[in-house]
């Protein structure tokens, strides 16, 4: 089996992994908010919320690796590997692509600091982790701006659902925090 670097296969893969990454990242943010807001019920223990947050965050990283890999390998656009990490390293839709690079850098920073949380200390980690609230909207904007499928109805619906979900849980989080 060989990978056709010129056909549309990689392009489809880029779009698909991009969409899945958006869903997973949204899931990670949702579960992160639930951890911070101390959600629990008789059937849903707290460690499960946190376990989901962790596992989904690591899956985000895996899907982003695929997303970037297929993008770089795809010869239709000439996006270098560097452009995935460094803003404005590519001329192709430089603005929207840069948002993706920024979001990726933030996600890597969030994951690495979380894995090193024990060494970093709680306070420093907590401050850094606020970056998540900046990272998620940047990633969504990247998808809306550059995504091939951004005008497909169901993709718009999914994106809106992500926005609505995070908005609702964030509101719950703020309210539950106030109540404590």
């Amino acid at each position, binding site marked *: 089996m060989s990978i056709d670097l010129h056909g549309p296969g990689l392009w489809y893969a880029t779009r698909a992994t991009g969409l899945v990454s958006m869903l997973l990242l949204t899931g990670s943010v949702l579960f992160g908010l639930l*951890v*911070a807001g101390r959600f*629990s019920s008789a059937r849903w*223990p*707290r*460690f499960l919320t*946190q*376990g989901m947050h962790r596992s989904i965050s690591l899956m985000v990283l895996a899907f982003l690796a695929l997303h970037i890999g297929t993008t770089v390998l795809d010869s239709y656009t000439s996006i270098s590997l560097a452009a995935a990490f460094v803003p404005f390293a590519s001329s192709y839709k430089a603005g929207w692509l840069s948002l993706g690079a920024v979001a990726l850098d933030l996600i890597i920073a969030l994951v690495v600091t979380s894995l090193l949380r*024990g060494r970093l200390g*709680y306070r420093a980690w907590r401050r850094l982790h606020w970056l998540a609230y900046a990272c998620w909207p940047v990633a969504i904007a990247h998808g809306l701006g550059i995504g091939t499928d951004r005008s497909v109805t169901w993709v718009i619906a999914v994106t809106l659902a992500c926005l609505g979900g995070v908005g609702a849980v964030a509101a719950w989080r703020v309210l539950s925090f106030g109540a404590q």
Partner: protein
Amino acid sequence: MRLRVNPIACTGHGMCAELLPELITLDPWGYPLLASEMVPQALAGHARRAADACPTLALLADDSFVAGPGVRHGRRHAG
């Protein structure tokens, strides 16, 4: 292994009691009560997981303490 709670850092998320119910229960206000500071070898993995899961890093699992059979307070490794 020896468990300790940093009571200043602890904000009562209660995850430790879910992950290590053998040794940790919650008081009426949601803060952890340790049945014993010394962790039996069989529970060491669970204890480490509970310490790792603590959202505020308030549960400390100290590996330099080893509980031997019948040793109540544990001993620190020499060196």
